[in-house]
């Protein structure tokens, strides 16, 4: 049997995910528990977590491929959060939760605006107390409201747990990189919908895609999507490479997150513009993608924070920042 190339392998994985997702009415919140079980049983929810730690093996590129296709389909499930929780547990040798999990940073014992807190079965917190970090399951969890994307957020508290060298910034950035994969999927879907609609919608006697302004707008969108895709691939490769210096990993991750979060706002605005009024209605699928783009981009810190952090690292290196910006 011929070994698959990495690209072929990812392609097969994506097809398998699409196949599974195609069997669910993803937009309906009622399907979430069943969809989660199916994804979990297929081994799609704990990719990049080693099998010996209770995960499904594979690498970050595999995990990101699943996230991207789920983002494309409009899935609302704690996929990123569960991966983060598992990674955090694995780092400190705790048991990896099997089901849905929330995950975040607790400052002074409390994590607020925590995605899926109170809805996911588990909640793993990186607890920051007295300048030190530890990993701990949440003691109390409450759901407060829903996000723009229609996902629950809540509050969780925890005391100190297993000490760890993982810092808040590292966890947040890792979360943002995984989230970038979902953003990329959501953006690809929004763009596909806009391209399709621009061919169907006739105005002043011709399809709107033949208007230069519409064509150029969509071309600009394609550029944004490609930029995020390239930056994300590089970040995943960098984070997966144990030989890569932590600062290079951080820069590659920041680049991907800055591209993805910028893309999110632009794609949401442009695809709504192409769709006109119809895209503004709840019945049209566009909003499944655009509300995700608007909401997820702020999940672990916003694009301006990430960009500022990147600028500060680069400035500290002066001219030699050039070296950090691609390898």
């Amino acid at each position, binding site marked *: 049997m011929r070994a698959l190339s990495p690209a072929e392998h990812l392609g097969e994985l994506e097809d398998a995910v699409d196949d599974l997702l195609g069997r669910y009415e993803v937009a309906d919140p009622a399907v979430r528990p069943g969809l989660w079980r199916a994804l979990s049983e297929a081994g799609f929810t704990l990719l990049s977590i080693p099998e010996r730690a209770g995960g499904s093996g594979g690498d970050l590129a595999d995990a990101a491929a699943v996230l991207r296709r789920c983002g494309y389909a409009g899935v609302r499930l704690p996929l990123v959060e569960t991966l983060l929780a598992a990674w955090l547990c694995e780092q400190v040798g705790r048991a990896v939760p099997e089901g849905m999990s929330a995950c975040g940073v607790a400052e002074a014992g409390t994590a607020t605006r925590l995605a899926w807190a109170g809805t996911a079965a588990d909640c793993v917190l990186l607890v920051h107390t007295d300048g030190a970090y530890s990993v701990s399951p949440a003691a109390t969890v409450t759901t407060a409201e829903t996000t723009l994307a229609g996902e629950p957020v809540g509050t969780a508290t925890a005391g100190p747990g297993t000490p760890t060298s993982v810092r808040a910034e590292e966890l947040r950035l890792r979360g943002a990189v995984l989230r970038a994969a979902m953003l990329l999927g959501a953006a690809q879907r929004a763009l596909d919908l806009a391209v399709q609609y621009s061919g169907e919608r006739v105005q002043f006697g011709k399809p709107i*895609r033949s208007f230069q302004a519409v064509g150029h707008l969509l071309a600009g969108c394609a550029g944004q999507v490609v930029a995020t895709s390239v*930056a994300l691939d590089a970040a995943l490769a960098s984070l997966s490479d144990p030989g890569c210096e932590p600062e290079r990993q951080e820069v590659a991750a920041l680049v991907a997150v800055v591209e993805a979060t910028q893309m999110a706002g632009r794609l949401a605005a442009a695809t709504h513009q192409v769709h006109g009024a119809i895209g503004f209605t709840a019945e049209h699928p566009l909003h499944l993608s655009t509300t995700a783009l608007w909401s997820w981009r702020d999940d672990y810190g916003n694009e301006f924070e990430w960009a500022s952090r990147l600028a500060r690292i680069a400035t500290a290196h002066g001219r030699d920042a050039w070296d950090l910006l691609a390898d």
Partner: protein
Amino acid sequence: MSAPMSLRGHRLADTASLRAEVREFVATELAERRWSARCDAWLLGWDPGFSQRLAARGWVGMAIPQEYGGRAAGALARFVVTEELLAAGAPVAAHWIADRQSAPQLLRFGTEQQRRLFLPEIAAGRMYTALGLSEPDSGSDLASVRTAATRVPGGWRVTGRKVWTSGAAHAHLLTALVRTTPLEPGAPRQAGLTQFIIDFDSPGVQVHPIRLINGEAHFAEVVLDDVFVADDRVLGTVGDGWRQVTAELAYERSGPERVLTTAPLLLAFLRDAARTGIAEPAALGRCLARLSTLRRITASVAVELAAGRTPELAAALAKDLGTRFEGEVAEVVRQCRTDPGGDEVNRLLREAILQSPGFTLRGGTTEILRGVIAKGMGLR
């Protein structure tokens, strides 16, 4: 919409030692004050001495096979050398078009005699070329060629005008797109075009420099008045010029020179900013992220091209994003500096601003590029 997504990152890490060598060479040149960094150096930095010193290190003609005097280095090695030179603002203009466009064209379409004659000289950094594509009023509509050739014994006689020919004042050869079959009404304008290699010393060739808004004259109008071109100076196939030139546009739309034109400014600013701080970090960070991404995209395109594929859509995307990035650098530096800036930053900033109208013009305007992208996405 799947094509542009197929780009995969290419790691450049394996080329670290080559990168270090180039950087050391550049540092030595700068220490010896042989030149100063410039924005848009592949257009503005004409320095035959530098081209020859570079060639002596084996960094000109890297894509040319060894049998023709080149190095046959890989696409990534060439990419790395180009990136480092552009980032340093080194004066690469003299050999630029010969190395980047004429050599590949000669390899693809040239006769064995042409290759043996020109390629070793190009690889030595001694022979420089210019392109004769645009004509007065042609603008983005390259197929509207009016320069025409008539058959004469042993060759052709060419008459017409080419404009926006960079390097024409000092180059040795002009590769001109010429109409060799008169345009019939209703016939496609792309048919009947041929590429000629014309010696600038030929009788009937006149070069009129075009002074730009920066006061310099890197472009020229080339007037061809009944210029004789021998048959052995036809490049490729008579009548096949349009296809040959279109293939060339893929090269012109994709390289690091579409991204790094203002990188010397950005890097000089970062050097100063390490001391002075920055005013609006988010703007700088977005700019740096885009630089990183564009470096990866152009590297991927270079590898694709070297593998014989023509990622036309990806190349157009790279250039659309890249040229806008080049223009944004000046604004970001203006936005982020906390004091009037060091002398070099100011000099480069001024250069970047004055060159900025050209960034989106050359090799296809934004409108044309977005048209290519829209078409590639199935929108046209």
